[in-house]
């Protein structure tokens, strides 16, 4: 009865229903005895050691390769940061950076928009909702080799169904994979298509945590659907959205098969992303050092982006 409007909104933004549990009054860590802390330390230690072995060794080995001019078999001579400077001075690298950015932005926000839209649609009472849920998950579930083959069949040649459809509509015969710009568009659309089910699941799961009473209250206050979406749905699902953005950014930047299976990075490097470029450097040009240097730069960029987005999550939690 004493709940004010501000308090209710603040609680709602934390995803809490009226009357739900609030934040613990005291810091939990402060209650832990030193004996318990020690126990936790020893319990965690084996996992940490395993993680260090599994992740640390390849990382150190990769660092050695990135600073040497050897091959996959031998380390070669130490060259310092020469591989990095060589890569950063290459026009092909910056072209790959450009496409990676476009691919990631379209991949993240395209799949999020479609996924959120479908998640909202599936909240409504539509017939055969379960069937549609399963159907919409298929692009995510089907192995990428199968879906890329299907897409290739759909768009590869002038006689492909999509090209034939465009032709029938009087839009000419687009060369979806042979024209550099269209190939970029096709690869991005393909990425959105295979990724939206993941975003849909993330959004659907976030939406279930939003109490319906919040919408009811807003509706009673005269809020429109759009106002409810921008004022309630987006803020209350923000944490989940940021997490899904972080994950999808990592998926997009590291996505090798989507591009490689559909276009191989062509035509004329139009769809070469950083990960494809790194792969080709190592396994086609046999330039291990520069290839691994690219991978390091990618990792660094991903860490920075993830940190920024993670701060956004913390910020949204505080709010």
């Amino acid at each position, binding site marked *: 009865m004493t709940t004010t409007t501000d308090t209710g909104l603040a609680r709602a933004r934390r995803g809490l229903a009226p009357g739900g549990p609030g934040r613990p009054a005291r810091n939990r860590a402060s209650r832990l005895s030193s004996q318990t802390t020690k126990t936790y330390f020893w*319990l965690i230690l084996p996992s940490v050691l395993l993680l260090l072995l599994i992740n640390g060794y390849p990382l150190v080995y990769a660092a050695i390769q990135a600073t040497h001019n050897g091959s996959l*078999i031998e380390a070669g001579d130490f060259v310092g940061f020469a591989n990095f400077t060589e890569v950063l001075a290459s026009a092909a690298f910056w072209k790959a950076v450009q496409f990676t950015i476009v691919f990631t932005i379209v991949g993240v926000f395209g799949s999020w928009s479609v996924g959120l839209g479908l998640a909202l649609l599936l909240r409504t009472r539509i017939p055969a909702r379960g069937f549609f849920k399963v159907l919409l998950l298929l692009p995510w579930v089907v192995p990428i080799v199968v879906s890329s083959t299907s897409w290739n069949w759909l768009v590869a040649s002038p006689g492909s169904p999509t090209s034939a459809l465009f032709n029938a509509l009087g839009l000419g015969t687009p060369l979806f994979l042979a024209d550099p710009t269209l190939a970029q568009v096709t690869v991005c659309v393909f990425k959105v298509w295979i990724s939206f089910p993941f975003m849909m699941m993330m959004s659907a799961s976030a939406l279930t945590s939003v109490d319906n009473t919040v919408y009811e209250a807003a509706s009673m206050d005269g809020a429109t659907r759009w106002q409810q979406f921008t004022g309630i749905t987006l803020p209350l699902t923000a944490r989940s959205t940021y997490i899904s953005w972080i994950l999808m950014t990592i998926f997009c930047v590291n996505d090798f098969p989507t591009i*490689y299976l*559909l276009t191989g990075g*062509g035509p004329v490097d139009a769809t070469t992303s950083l990960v494809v470029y790194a792969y080709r450097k190592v396994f086609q040009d046999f330039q291990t050092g520069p290839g691994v240097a690219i991978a390091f730069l990618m990792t660094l960029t991903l860490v920075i982006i993830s940190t920024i987005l993670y701060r956004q999550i913390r910020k949204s939690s505080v709010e």
Partner: protein
Amino acid sequence: MTSSRPLSRQPFSRQPFSRRGFLGLAAAAAAVPALAACGGGSASKSGGGDAIKFWDMPWGTPAYNDAAKKIVEGYAPTGSNLKASYQIIQWNNFYQTFSSAIASKTGPAVSTGGGFQAFQFEQQGAIAYADKVIDALKKNGQYDDFLPGVLDPFKSDKGYVAVPWQLDMRVMWYRKSLFDKAGVAAPTDWKGILEAGKALKKIGAGGFVTGAGAGNFMGNHLVVQTMVNNGGGVWGTDGQIDVVNDRNIEAIEFLYELYSNGIIDPAAVSYTQDNHDAQWKDKTKGAYGLHVAGLTNRVGDTSGDLQVAPVVSGPHGDKGTLVFPNNIMMYKNTPSQDSSEAFLVAYLGQIKELWKQKQMNALPVFKSITELPEFTSDPNNVKIIKEWQPIAKTFASRGTKLSANTAVLDGGQALTQFAQTVLSGKGDAKTALKAFEDGLKSVVKS
């Protein structure tokens, strides 16, 4: 009251086993895989100490590997030589597979593999030279059975890097029914290709079928083959890169001309192997173009309509095509070098069985196999051996010696980018060749 609480909420001291005991158990569990990994090291020596490890790729038909395995299992070593074991290695990431295995000393003693793989691993000091094998082949008569010129590319200053066992040839194919329909004969020169292409285009057929999409290197091979066909190539006679020259410019201009006349499909630049083969399977589309020797088996058309085309002469009368001599190599990491050599000699003596059983799409390197009735029963095989094999040159052309640099050329970004530029009709021949040369120089070790 306490005992009714869930176990996880109980204080540690009241749980069925102690904290120390639990930590000990966790440590033991963590140590098991680590110890197992350490223990595995002792058994990782090539061949396991009692057999020569032979790694083989999926060549030929799906039943090829069973046939090859049978040969290996049937190998009876003499004296103190070791037996051999057979392992299939898939093409996916094969270079990574070999590299990792060689680096960790768990690789094969003998293997087939990529066409230029032996030169790459030789550069890294992992290859055992095959001079003693060649000596043995001289003694048993097989040396004289090699087709002319197939052994030469493998001879380096230090010795034979590998021994060839099959030839992956690029030849021109044509569909006779479409040429008949278009009212033209199979071309024998570039002018003829252009005229036939125009006539075939009028009936809706593909006058010059190719592809340079994901994983399809036929377009790469086409651009080099056209240069070789005009007396050019990627390397000079001294083995140095020599791309921007008159013969190459003329050759690439010819491909641009085919593109601008609509004879090369504008979508070909993105055709995968499947898209490319689909053109040949379609009896109204694929009329003429460069492909592998076993095209009829590959696309399942043995009707006789698909035939090996006549050898083509360039504008200056030059003839030439590409051949990739696939080879068997030996590695220094072997339980017994004598056993590796003995096995390789014996295996080369038995490979005719693979052609007898019609498991191979590629051509043999031994004359005696080309005379087998199972081989000569296909007139296309006979034509390739008679007309195309004598004019075939390796990727090293105009030079003669293969090297690790040819591996960088084959499938490397520079060549792929060059082929895709040409097959998408972008720019001009000289600019495309210059970019190719610059790209290649940036990755090739001099």
